[in-house]
């Protein structure tokens, strides 16, 4: 067992620079979810751990061992590829047994034990009915589970899962998440799990690293990211729905700091005012949870005029997306209120519990 550490990683593809001094630590026995939009470098980071891509500079450590330049085979890794990469000429059983028959593990497993393990993993992943099928006769979700099984069948030192459950139907996805989590709790293999589903990351990760354009925006426990997002990007990525991000200006009124949003002035609590005073410029972004905004019948003091962009039912409520200026606000109301796209509605905003970010850098305004 071993932690995974990146130290000051640089990597370019041709002229496009992906990582510029990325550092990240996934301590021993932790389950780290790597969360980020498409193209931010999640797969590349996994390939660097596996030794399939070498960084231009910087160190990769597994445990206390520097693995730069070490061939993939001797890193003792289980990797579930994003696009499965199963062996098309082998059956499901053949694919699962392939790592166990590897020359690097020669003599470690007897034939009987190989069969035993294949059966156990197949049962765990609900593919025991398919063991003799060729893998190109399987559905996408079945192939994904074979890929997952192949990654963990040899009890690797670290487990790298590149979007391991994205192609499963909702129910199976929940089941597989639970199985993976259970397995991790039991064996404790250090795991990096790539996903772009924030819900999955919140549900599974001991730690979550949010990535964007080859940078780590924030590393922290799920609740930490939820309650204390370090940047506006993280705030806009995590939560269902995520925080609404609204551009605003700080101003002074009677010696108090206030926030001007779309022509309305909102007062700040003392704590928030203290934060606002730390702002490097007047331009800020306000992060609002859905419960901080409410529709109001008519324009009242502090209400903001908005347009309904979309609306959809969520259980007994409806979720509205409202626009004003270049910003979007998510808001929940009773489905008794009838609105349609394009309607003008008024919104009252409460800043209690809002997060403030510097507009230029996107960083959260510090407390202190």
């Amino acid at each position, binding site marked *: 067992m071993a932690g995974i550490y990146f130290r000051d990683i640089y990597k370019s593809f041709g002229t496009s620079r992906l990582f510029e001094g990325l550092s990240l630590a996934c301590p021993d026995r932790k389950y780290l979810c790597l969360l980020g939009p498409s193209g931010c470098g999640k797969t590349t980071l996994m390939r660097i751990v596996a030794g399939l891509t070498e960084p231009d500079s910087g160190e990769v450590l597994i445990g206390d061992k520097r693995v730069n330049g070490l061939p993939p085979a001797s890193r003792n890794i289980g990797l579930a590829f994003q696009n499965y990469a199963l*062996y098309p*000429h082998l059956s499901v059983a053949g694919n699962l047994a392939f790592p166990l028959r590897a020359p690097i593990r020669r003599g470690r497993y007897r034939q009987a034990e190989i069969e035993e393990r294949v059966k156990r993993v197949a049962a765990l992943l609900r593919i025991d009915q398919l063991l003799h099928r060729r893998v190109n006769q399987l559905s996408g979700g079945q192939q994904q589970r074979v890929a997952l099984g*192949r990654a963990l069948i040899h009890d690797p030192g670290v487990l790298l899962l590149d979007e391991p459950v994205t192609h499963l139907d909702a129910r199976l996805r929940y089941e597989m998440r639970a199985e993976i989590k259970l397995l991790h709790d039991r064996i404790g293999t250090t795991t990096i799990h790539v996903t772009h589903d924030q819900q999955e990351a919140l549900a599974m990760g001991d730690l979550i690293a949010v990535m964007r354009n080859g940078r780590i925006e924030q590393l922290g426990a799920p609740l930490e990211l939820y309650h204390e997002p370090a940047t506006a990007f993280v705030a806009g990525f995590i939560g269902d729905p995520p925080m609404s991000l609204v551009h605003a200006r700080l101003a002074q009124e009677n010696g108090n700091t206030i926030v001007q949003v779309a022509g309305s002035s909102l007062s700040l609590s003392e704590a928030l005012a203290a934060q606002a005073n730390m702002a490097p410029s007047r331009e800020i972004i306000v992060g609002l949870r859905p419960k901080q905004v409410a529709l109001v019948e008519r324009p009242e003091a502090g209400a903001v005029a908005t347009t309904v962009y979309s609306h959809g039912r969520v259980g007994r409520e409806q979720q509205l997306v409202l626009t004003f200026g270049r910003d979007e606000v998510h808001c929940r109301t009773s489905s008794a209120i009838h609105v349609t796209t394009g309607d003008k509605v008024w919104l009252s905003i409460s800043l209690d519990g809002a997060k403030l970010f510097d507009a230029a850098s996107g960083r959260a305004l510090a407390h202190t």
Partner: protein
Amino acid sequence: MSTIVPDKKNAVGAATGARNLAIYLAACLFVGFGLFPLYMMITTSLKTDQQTFAWPPVWLFTPRFQSYYNALFVFGGRSADHYLFNSLVVTLSSSALAVFLGAMAAYGLARFRFRGNRDVAFYILSTRFAPPVGFIVPIYLMVQRSGLLDTQIALIVVYTSMNLSFVTWILRGFFLEIPIEIEEAALVDGYTRWQIFLRVALPLVRPGLAATAILSAIFSWNEFLFASILAPGDAATIPVYLAGFSASMNIDWGEYMAVGTMAVLPIMIFTLALQRHLVRGLTFGAVR
């Protein structure tokens, strides 16, 4: 309305039927044209001389195997089976060597980036630009100096080198089609390059191996020019032996055709046996 639609459909059906019939007939003619010499050869080998030269031709007759018996057991000197065996040894060895060495070269060219990769690939192909007669003299000298004249080894080496270039080119294309992630998965699973080549890459290019094996075997089996010059005697292959027939004053047509039939059979069986591996799309759908 409901009466018009079926009518129309029938008209269309009849038209395509006629079209299909025409295509079918054309195909039959073509196949007949291709197979007729083979038919003539096989029937002649089973006829008596009288039947062979009878006019009008005899279409129905009782086959007799005397010609085969004569070719194998009666003729003086080496008989046909000796040369058939030579051909078999030379063809199997040179094809196996060409496909195996070619596969390794092709894998290297497809998977490793090194300086001059494309130049090497082109050079390998360019070895086939010159007509073989062009370099028969230097090859003859090389074989003679190394004391390999009239040996099977000489033919095996020459045929292997001649087949190697197209085997390499065809297989390179097949290897390039394997998604790289499959081999990366094997690297992570703990396999070395050499084992990945043997246990992942080769099985995935099986159709390519079959195709190149068939082409090399046909070439080696039929090659005449080099065989006649490098191995005219004891090590001669079946084409050289066959040519000996037409050189003599009066040709024993029955025996000639019997040897011809025996010369065609092995390569036909070989091709038919490998043909079922020519299925395409083994790697199709391997990665998402």
